[in-house]
């Protein structure tokens, strides 16, 4: 159990690093944070939904600073990391789990949210999440599954973008 928890934290750190590296790239070159001109990324951001005081924590939370001025609609994207081990899973179980993860992410990190971290540029404002992302550890997913999973979500018109991240080898 402890090993799983450590694995999850390690994965989350690695995804955070990957996204932070993307911040330095220009919009056209970025692979994940593609919808934002000037993204700002924070980790473990507490969010509430309207009418509910319970907090959910987005693993990573990105806001486009270019939309913060001038009353433009604020653009916000949320990330949930999944370091799940799919080894030995049948294909239908994998597809079903990913769909369930996507549904859960839409509820917890999608729709209208309010950032509850004091000091955050949009603290206390209700904003609509423009895109919800799921990032999976790619280690136990075969190359063909990594191509088929986004398509399976697309067939069902699921509005969650799925990515696969491999924790890069230590130097």
């Amino acid at each position, binding site marked *: 159990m402890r090993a799983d928890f450590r694995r999850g934290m390690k994965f989350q750190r690695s995804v955070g690093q990957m996204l932070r590296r993307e911040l330095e790239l220009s919009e056209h070159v970025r692979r994940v944070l593609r919808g934002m001109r000037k993204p700002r990324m924070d980790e473990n951001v507490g969010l509430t939904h309207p009418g509910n005081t319970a907090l959910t924590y987005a693993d990573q939370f990105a806001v486009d600073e270019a939309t913060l001025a001038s009353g433009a609609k604020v653009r916000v994207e949320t990330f949930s990391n999944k370091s799940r*081990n799919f*080894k030995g*899973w*049948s*294909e*239908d*179980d994998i*597809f*079903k789990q990913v*769909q369930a993860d996507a*549904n859960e992410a*839409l509820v917890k990190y999608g729709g209208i949210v309010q950032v509850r971290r004091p000091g955050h540029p949009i603290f206390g404002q209700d904003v609509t999440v423009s895109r919800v992302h799921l990032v999976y550890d790619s*280690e136990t997913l*075969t*190359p*063909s599954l*990594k*191509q*088929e999973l*986004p*398509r*399976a979500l*697309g*067939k*069902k*018109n*699921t509005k969650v973008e799925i990515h696969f991240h491999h*924790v890069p*080898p*230590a130097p």
Partner: protein
Amino acid sequence: MSLPPPDKWNESDILDFELFSSINPFDRGHEGLNEVLDVLESVDEELRPGRISFERDRKPKYSRQLMHESLSEFQFMENTSFFLKCARVPEAYFDIHGSTDDEGSRFSLTLRIIPFAWCREPGKQEERAAGLVSLVRTLASRLPLSHGSAHSGTDQLLDTDPEQPRPILPPQVERMHWLNVYGPQRVEALGRERVLSTPAFLVEELPHGAVLILTRPTPVDFASEQARLAQARALVHLRPDLKLEDILSTLHRRSLAFTPIPIQFDPDVADILLQEVDFQGLSLRRQRVEQYNAYHPPTVSEWLPAAHQPWPDVPDVQAALDLYEGTYAEQLLALLHTEVPSVMDRSPESLPHIDWNSWHMSWGCQFTPEQRSRLIPALGAYLGMLLVYGLGGKWMPRRNLDEAAVVVGDRAWLPFLRARHYLQGRDAPLDYSLTQLFREAQRRRG
């Protein structure tokens, strides 16, 4: 190692069958569900729904009643979605979905026939193909179809850019599958006369303006010359802007992926490489086999002549052996018993599984120095124990673990030093595998 027969080479292929409609039958709740179940229950006995897939540990036997009782569980926001496992093709399943939102309605019926070999079963190919065609007709009689296809999943993957997911509905016809369904919009865009005159094994009008085209009688020969020619001819008929020779050459190139080549891996690590090849899947099989056919690990260097092995310098030899066998080796079992169940056998047969797991999970570059310092004794002790109990070796413990050895015949093998090398880089578990050392020791013993 030799030339695998084509059926063995291609055994991990999947038949990917999908049909789409822009009407969502679940808008009509239970009545719509009944219609969908009518269609699913009409298929080949072996493919008929056998179990309802809830969670990994909850897959009750399929029944209409349970399906209706579970309808609310299948719903999430505007979606209705469920997975059904096929009755007698254990890994095959249906993935059914319908939703209606402000963008419109949609329905998809996906059938993944795993393994593809079910379609290839001698004596049953035509019958099984006919069953799939029949499924198209049955659904088409209940719902207007907007598009659909059935074909080798791997062949489709090979045709896809890994960076871009395969579009649900490509803007233009890009390739011909074994089975193709064009909805009225596509048919009108291409020209109905043109579509109906496609050179193909079967062209059939479906209700509501859709058209079904089969390039061949069955899906199984998709990579053959005949089938590629049929696919190319049909495509060029529908897309006169494309050139037959170019299409054919692309298709023939893809067919290479399904043509076996001899597997000639280094015998000491063949078991490890085969696991990796299997994991990478059929679309990469040929590439990987070519790559690994050329690979040889370095000669094992973690040994001394037995005469040069220093005597134990530990205060208590028995305590050292208890530490190695009782504590360190057990740590490897504790660490790996879920990932690599065969480690519980404490047998040489477990070594290639351990090695592949280490290599694939990047053990060679994942760990901090502190974690490595705990893994090395565990790996080394496990390997050492196999040298002792499998080959009649004798421990020679040392304070410095790198110097500790198991003497087998005229050689002193250094399992902890090997474990240190095993964790020193990305491919180190392959280059310095436990398997190779054990096999070398086995050979030397005679």
